[in-house]
C-alpha cells in the first residue's frame, strides 16, 4: 500500500520538475522518468501489457522522438525564452484552481471503496488480446487509418520542399 503512495509522490515530483526545469532537454529527461514511474503504476495494477507498451512506446519511441527534435532544432536553455513571473504565477494559480475544482466536483476527497483486483487476469496480454481482437476489432482496425493519416501528414509537413513553388 505504501508503495503506491511512494511511487505517486515520485511521479508528481518528477512531473513538477518537467514543467519547471528551464532546459527543455532536462524536461524531456524528467518526463521519461515520470513515465517510468507510471509504468510502475501499471505493474502495480497488474496491467502488464500496458506497462510494457508504455515502456516501449512512450518512454522508448515517443520520448526519443521528442529528444531527437529538440536536439535537431538545437534548443537549449539559452534559446528558450521564459514567460514573465506574473504569467507563471497566474498559470500556477489557474492550474491549482483547476485541480481544486476537478477534485471538488469528483468528490474525490471522501471515503470510497478500496481498489481490489477483482480479476487479476484482465491486464495480461492473453486476456487483452482476446478483448482487443474480438470486441474491439473495429476500433483497432480503424486506428490504422489514424496512423496512416498521421504518417502521410508528418512526412508531408516535415519534408523539406526541394524548391520554392
Amino acid at each position, binding site marked *: 500500500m505504501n508503495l503506491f503512495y511512494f511511487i505517486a509522490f515520485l511521479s508528481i515530483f518528477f512531473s513538477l520538475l518537467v514543467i519547471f526545469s528551464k532546459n527543455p532537454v532536462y524536461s524531456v529527461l524528467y518526463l521519461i522518468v515520470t513515465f517510468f514511474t507510471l509504468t510502475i503504476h501499471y505493474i502495480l495494477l497488474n496491467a502488464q501489457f500496458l506497462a510494457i507498451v508504455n515502456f516501449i512506446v512512450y518512454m522508448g519511441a515517443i520520448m526519443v522522438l521528442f529528444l531527437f527534435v529538440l536536439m535537431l532544432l538545437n534548443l537549449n536553455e539559452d534559446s528558450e525564452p521564459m*514567460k514573465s513571473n506574473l*504569467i507563471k504565477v*497566474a*498559470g500556477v494559480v*489557474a*492550474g491549482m*484552481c*483547476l485541480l481544486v*475544482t*476537478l477534485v*471538488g*466536483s469528483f*468528490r474525490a476527497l471522501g471515503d470510497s471503496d478500496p481498489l481490489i483486483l477483482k480479476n487479476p487476469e484482465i491486464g495480461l496480454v492473453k486476456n487483452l488480446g482476446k478483448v482487443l481482437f474480438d470486441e474491439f476489432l473495429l476500433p483497432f482496425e480503424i486506428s490504422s487509418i489514424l496512423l496512416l493519416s498521421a504518417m502521410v501528414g508528418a512526412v508531408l509537413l516535415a519534408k523539406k520542399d526541394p524548391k520554392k513553388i
Partner: protein
Amino acid sequence: MIDFVWLVPLFPLIGFLIIGLGRNILPKAVAGFIGSLTVLLSFAVSIAIFVQLESSAVKTHIVPLFDWIRAGNLLVPFSFQVDPLSALMLLIVTGIGFLIHVYSTGYMHHDAGFSKFFSYLNLFIFFMLLLVLGSNYIVMFIGWEGVGLCSYLLIGFWYTNSAYASAAKKAFIMNRIGDLGFLIGVFLIFATFGSLEFAQVFPQAANLAPNNPFLILITILLFIGATGKSAQIPLFTWLPDAMAGPTPVSALIHAATMVTAGIYMIARSNILFTLAPLTLEIVAIIGIATALLAATIAVTQTDIKKVLAYSTVSQLGYMFLALGVGAYTGAMFHVLTHAFFKALLFLGAGSVIHAMSNEQDMRAMGGLKKKLPITFITMLIGTIAISGIPPFSGFFSKDEILAHTYQHSKTLWVLGVIGAMFTAFYMFRMLFLTFYNKFRGTHEQEHHLHESPKSMTIPLIVLAALSVVGGFIGIPHILGGHHWLSQFLAPVFYQSSVRTGALTLDHQTEFLLMGVSVAGAVIAALIAFVKYSKNNHVPLADNVDRGTLARLSYHKYYIDEIYDFAISKPLNFLSGFFYRVVDKAAIDGVVQGLGRATTEASKGLRLLQSGNIGFYIFMMVAGIVALLLYGFYNI
C-alpha cells in the same frame, strides 16, 4: 376560383423570374409589359375571387398548398386564407399595384435599371400578396420580411448616391427592430396557443378572459412590429428618408401597400387586441401622437415628397387610432381610401417631378396649373379627398374613425380634429405652392415643362376617379347608406364586435361631429389659400418679401399678422422642433447609438482574440474552471 388563389401570387413571381433572368436581354418595352401584365392577371383573379366570396355563404376559405415545416408537434402548412379581409387587401395590392406598374413604364423610361426596377417591383407584389394571403403567422412573416427586403432594394435603387444608400440602411435597421418585436410575439403565440394558424389561434384566444398577461405581452410585441413597418412613433423616421427611392416606389410601397401591413396585421389579429384593452389604449395614443407629430412636421417641409411622406405617417397614425378605439372596419376603410388618394398624390407628385426635371423643392415650382392640367386636376381631387371634404372618399373613412374616437374619448376626438385641420392645411399649402402663382424655377426648367405621357396620366385619372367614388362603399347609416364595407368585413371582426359593441351615437351628435370636422378642414384650406395662393407666400428660408406685403390691403394684412403671431410662428417653431429634435436627434440618435454601441462592443470584444496561444489556453482553462465550479455546486 378561390381554390386557385395561389395564382394571384404566382403571376408576379413568374414576372419577377422572367424579368430578373432576362433583364439584359429583354427590351424595356417587353419588361414593362410583362411586369404590368402579370399584376393585371393577378388583379383579374382577385376580382374573380372577390366576386365569388361576396356571393358565397362561407366567408373563410383555407387553401392549403403543402406542409411547409413539420417538427415535433409543430405543423406549419404553407396555406392561404381567403376571407373578406384578405380579399379586400388583394384588390388593393393588385389593383393599385397594376396602376403603378403602368405608371412606372412611363416614369422610369429613361432609367438604365428599368428591367431591374420592374423585377423588384414584381417581387414586392409577390411578397405583399404572401403577407395578406398567409393563413398563419409564419407565411405572413415571410411576406413581412420579403416586402421589407424589396423596400430596402428599391429605396437604394439609385445607389450611386450615398445618401440614398444610407436611407435604405436606416429603413432596414428600423424595420428590423420592428420585426424583432413581431417575431418574438409570434414565438409567444406559439408558446401560448401551440399553433400559428389563424384558424386555431383566434378561437382559442376568444375563450380567454380579457387582460390575460400573455395576451397583453403578445399584442404589445405585435404592435412593436407594426410600428416598424407602418412608421409609427418611435420608428417612423425611416419613412420620410425612404423618399429617396423612385416615386412610383413611394406610391406603391410607402403609401398604398407595405406601410399598411401593420394595420392589416392588427386587424387580422383583432380578437387578440380586443381582449387586451391596455394594448389598444397604447395603440390609440401612439396613433394620435404620430398623427399630430407628423402633421406638424409636414407643415414646414419644402420637398414635395417629404410633405407627402409625413402626411402618410400622419394618416397611418389615424388608422392606428381607429384600431385603438376598436374601429377595425374604419381602419380598413381608411387603408382603402388612403391607398387611392395617397397613391394618386404620390404619382401626381412624380408627374410634377418628372416635368420639373427631377426638381423636388416646392420653392422652385409654382404656376404649374396650366402646364400640367391633368396632373393639377387629379391632385386637386386627391387633396380634397385627403382633407376629408365630402363627398370625396377621405371624408367617409375619416369621419367613421372620428365618430368612433368620439365615442371612445372626447380628448382623442379633439386631437383628431386638430390633426385633420393640419392635414387640410399642409395639403392645400402643397397644392398652392406647386400649381398656383408664378413659376419660380429656372428658365431651362420652364422651357422643359410638359404634361406627362399617357402611361402616367391614365393611372392618375383612374386613381382620381377612385378617390372620388371610393368612399361610397362605406356610406354611414345616417347619410342613408348601409355601409356595405362594414357588412362585408363583419365576419372577420365578428368576435371583436361582440365585445366592443356598435356605434351608439345619436344622429344629432353624429351630424355635429361631421360638421365640425368638415368645417375645420375647410377653414384650414382657406387659411392655406390666403397665405400661399392669395398672398403668394413662399416659404423662403428667412426673408419675407416686404414689397409684396406692402401691396396688401390693410385688413388682410391684419389677419396675416394675427395669423403669423398666433399660429404661424409657434407652428413653425413646433414643426421645426419636432423635425430637428424628435425626428433627427432623438429617434435617429437612439437608433444610430444602438448601432454604434454594437460596433464599439465589437471593437472591444475582438481584442479578446489577442493572437497569443498562451492567453487562449488561459481563457479556456478559466472557462473550464467555471464549468467545474458549476458542477461542484450542482452535483
